[in-house]
């Protein structure tokens, strides 16, 4: 989602807000302390209410009938029998007859009934006549001459070739060249809470409890799709069970839910089931490359020439940044998006970056091998100059030291026995930054502090850092702050994507809480007979700056407000946030060359994110990103049958995700950059894990598996091919 948010602070500029700067780390009483999340008790006790859990009086259950065909023209849809089925209160046709269903799972019709079981029974009674059309589910089939067209105009959309420098001269300067092909799979988001919502109408006003990363964006989406004013829509998302980039609007199922609810004149809950979630709610597109690259004898990169492609399914692009991070002075890259009859891609945690990182970092190790350089040394030689948002030159040696990189053997574990161990590394970069958030702060006469902001906590800990920033500003402890987020009736904030939430929200809280304190001081100062500027808020007191005994406990100070609270609305200001992060990861793996099973035993990570607000939740983000990267490296893959176009693993049994025993030992070092202000952290840590793991697997088994995920069949095939060739890497 970074693409949606322009970089709003130059990365290098230190954050320096004139009136409400962040406190120096030594002076901070709340920020920078590892504090538990404020909604932890609700989550661990099952009392946090997600959209999936919302109960309303007379609630109906919605269900969508979906196309079983990857490509078919819908001739007719007959919902008459479904309408008469037991318990059914509403039914509608979603697709216009005559239009094509573009992928398995495309919406056809929907019903709402009194129970989920009745709704399921009723959709089975819907009669659909399909004219089955030729389909292409995989990119290699779609790219063939004469392949059936997904859309008019063909299946391939070529981008402009990007070229810099003099490619021919670059290859001339190369002592060695590497030519290789790499590819990555389609990964689905697998949000544990599936997409969906509860919709309820009161006359022409809609209230929707939605599992979303953007309450305001979803309000806009509902209004637009239903042709009603935004003022008539309220979107609520108190808690949500994971989005990872796939939950930014009402989506088709949300609009269907609202229409069913309107028709039935009753609230309707419509949550996707696990199969639907895999098929239609987004994915990370595949990527593939053919790369030729050159390196000079001294290890300097000279040239990079790549053709790349990938599929985002029916109508979505599959671009990714390439080459990633390292400086190839002469380079060319030609990308093609390939359309297929498969569920469309959506933004997925650091869109494009894990792909670009994998292709580039694999290539880097191959080039380092050619010039017989240590991969870390080779990387450092070819990194861009150091800057606050480009700290790899510093981080690589720190991480290598912590990791014990000096113990790395050259390619191929020479030890006997079937278990081979190896090490690899990779770097990441991300934008972060954010803006455009408004907030509301009230200081009440009983001492209570209410902070309202129309952002949402998608599990990253936004509620917690909002409480911390307000507490720091007001000299209180963070549990004294009541935080309300996740409602489109609260002051505007953007979607939680692109690792922008922290940088968009916390400056707004800092400024608004700062202004609220100023207003409170104005009203307290006369009672103390000092100018407001001489008052400070600290340790739960409002007191005179150099005369701590002169002042009031917070509650007593607030009591002086009488009946009228302090109420301030303000917004994000420049000078408290920045953009641009960098990090590196090192992986150690164990590969059983007899079974082909690879296991990640250890990850060492050095990562920055600007000013660290809550080291505890920040660390959790990094752990989580790394686990997701391990999944991408070893386990996850949307598998479509090349003949039928059907997904063969639309569940959580065969679509593999790491469990407790698969998770490596993870060591996180967060580099604090307080002078830069808040940046954001959700995405960077997931970028470079898969590349580091893949490099470690190559280092372990002495043969390079250039395609993700590194499943036992791919590893055994690579070993067998090497054996047949009688050679090594």
């Amino acid at each position, binding site marked *: 989602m970074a693409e949606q948010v322009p970089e709003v602070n130059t990365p290098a500029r230190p954050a320096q807000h004139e009136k409400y700067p962040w406190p120096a780390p030594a002076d901070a009483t709340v920020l920078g302390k590892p504090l*538990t*999340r404020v909604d*932890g*008790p*609700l*989550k*661990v*006790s*099952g*009392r946090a*209410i*997600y959209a*999936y*859990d919302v*109960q309303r009086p007379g609630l109906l*259950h919605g269900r969508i009938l979906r196309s079983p065909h990857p490509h078919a023209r819908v001739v007719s849809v007959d919902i008459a029998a479904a309408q008469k089925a037991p318990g059914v209160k509403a039914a509608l046709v979603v697709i216009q007859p005559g239009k094509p269903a573009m992928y398995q799972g495309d919406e056809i019709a929907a019903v709402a009934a009194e*129970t*989920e*079981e009745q709704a399921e029974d009723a959709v089975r009674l819907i009669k659909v006549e399909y004219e089955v059309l030729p389909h292409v589910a995989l990119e290699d089939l779609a790219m063939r001459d004469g392949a059936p067209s997904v859309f008019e105009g063909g299946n391939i959309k070529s981008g402009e070739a990007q070229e810099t420098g003099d490619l021919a001269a670059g290859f001339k300067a190369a002592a060695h060249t590497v030519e290789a092909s790499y590819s990555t799979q389609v990964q689905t988001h*697998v*949000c*544990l*809470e*599936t997409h969906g919502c509860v919709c309820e109408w009161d006359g022409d006003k809609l209230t929707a409890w939605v599992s979303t990363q953007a309450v305001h964006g979803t309000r806009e989406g509902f209004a637009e799709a239903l042709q009603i004013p935004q003022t008539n829509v309220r979107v609520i998302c108190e*808690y949500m*069970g*994971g989005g*990872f980039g796939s939950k930014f609007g009402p989506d088709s199922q949300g609009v269907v839910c609202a229409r069913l609810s309107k028709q039935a004149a009753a609230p309707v809950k419509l949550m996707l*089931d*696990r199969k639907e979630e895999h098929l239609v709610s987004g994915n990370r597109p595949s990527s593939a490359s053919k790369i030729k690259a050159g390196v000079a004898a001294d290890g300097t990169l000279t040239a990079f020439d790549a053709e790349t492609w990938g599929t985002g399914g029916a109508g979505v692009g599959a671009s990714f940044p390439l080459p990633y991070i390292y400086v190839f002075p002469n380079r060319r890259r030609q990308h093609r998006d390939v359309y297929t009859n498969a569920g469309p891609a959506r933004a997925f945690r650091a869109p494009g970056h894990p792909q670009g990182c994998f292709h580039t970092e694999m290539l880097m190790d191959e080039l380092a091998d050619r010039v017989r350089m240590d991969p870390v040394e080779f990387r450092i030689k070819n990194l861009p100059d150091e800057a606050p948002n480009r700290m790899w030159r510093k981080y690589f040696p720190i991480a290598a030291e912590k990791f014990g990189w000096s113990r790395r053997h050259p390619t191929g574990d020479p030890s006997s026995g079937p278990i081979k161990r190896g090490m690899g590394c990779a770097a990441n970069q991300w934008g972060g930054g954010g803006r455009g958030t408004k907030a509301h702060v009230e200081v009440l006469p009983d001492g209570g502090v209410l902070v309202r902001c129309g952002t949402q906590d*998608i*599990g*990253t800990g936004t509620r917690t850092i909002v409480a911390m920033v307000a507490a720091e500003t007001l000299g209180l402890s963070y549990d004294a702050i009541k935080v309300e987020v996740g409602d489109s009736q609260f002051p505007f904030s953007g979607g939680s994507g692109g690792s922008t939430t922290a940088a968009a929200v916390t400056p707004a809280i800092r400024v608004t809480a700062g202004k609220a304190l100023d207003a409170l001081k104005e009203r307290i100062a006369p009672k103390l007979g000092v100018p407001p500027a001489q008052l400070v808020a600290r340790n739960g007191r409002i007191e005179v700056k150099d005369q701590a005994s002169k002042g009031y406990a917070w509650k007593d100070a607030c009591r002086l407000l009488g009946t009228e609270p302090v109420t301030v609305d303000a917004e994000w200001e420049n000078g408290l946030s920045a953009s641009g992060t960098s990090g590196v990861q090192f992986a150690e793996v164990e590969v059983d060359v007899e079974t082909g*099973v690879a*296991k990640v035993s250890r990850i060492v990570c050095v990562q920055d994110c600007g000013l660290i607000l809550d080291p*505890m*939740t920040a*660390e*959790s*983000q990094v*752990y*989580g*990103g*790394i*686990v*997701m990267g391990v999944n991408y490296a070893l*386990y996850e893959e949307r598998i479509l049958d090349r003949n039928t176009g059907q997904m063969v693993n639309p*569940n*959580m*049994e065969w679509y*593999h*995700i*790491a*469990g*407790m*025993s*698969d*998770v490596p030992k*993870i060591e996180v070092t967060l580099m604090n950059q307080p002078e830069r202000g808040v940046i954001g952290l959700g995405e960077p840590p997931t970028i470079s894990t898969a590349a580091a793991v893949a490099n470690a697997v190559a280092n372990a088994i002495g043969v390079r598996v250039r395609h993700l995920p590194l499943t*036992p069949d791919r590893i055994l095939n690579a070993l067998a091919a090497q054996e047949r060739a009688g050679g090594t890497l």
Partner: protein
Amino acid sequence: MLSAAVSHSGIGVRPGGVRRRYRFFFSRFGGPMSLHDDDHDAGRSAVDEGINVSRRMFLKSVGVTGVAAGVLGAEAEPHAAGPAAVGPGPVPVTLRVNGKTETLQVEPRVTLLDALRDRLNHTGLKRVCDRGSCGACTAIVDGRTIYSCSTLAIELQGKDVRTIEGLTEGTVLHPVQQAFVKHDGTMCGFCTPGFVMSAAALLERYPKPTVEQAREALDGNICRCGTYTKVLQAVLDTGKGVSRG
């Protein structure tokens, strides 16, 4: 093998990790990890013992094999009377949930999870995979963890069903819940109640679990945010004795 599994536990499975991942592969192709072998692996935690049958597989087997159905009848006393058909319409089902007796009218096909969530408004346990793969719906029945998404409500009459709602005493969190908060063993929180239930069941059996026991017990739960490291810390920390309060 199946009958042994049933007599131990009703319905349940807590395999995980690589072992879980390739279980079917190995068992189908005669490899080293047959279901049977796992059942009698002395090294495995008791939480795991004897319950290594996928719930779907079990449900299917109940439908098609007399042996399994007979075993179930002997296990589930309330309807040991025989194979009298009930349904398909709603029938009265009496459940004891967190010590409280509840009688509902549900179709026999309704799972325990759906009965809890849609009929009793116990929404703490979540529906995620809905087929016994992820553990978000984990409940404790007669002391053992089960996947409530793949267990029919009607089969649990006369049994003692515990859910996440029963773990907290008023406003006081269970020690393992406190440890989850302390170690940040939750992010989006959607998998958390299931993990907490698995952890609570483990700790009732093994108050001081080893790392291996803890991993094994939690291997039937999936977290997408990646809280595993901190969940493990929380469970081991509880084992070191954090008091309720």
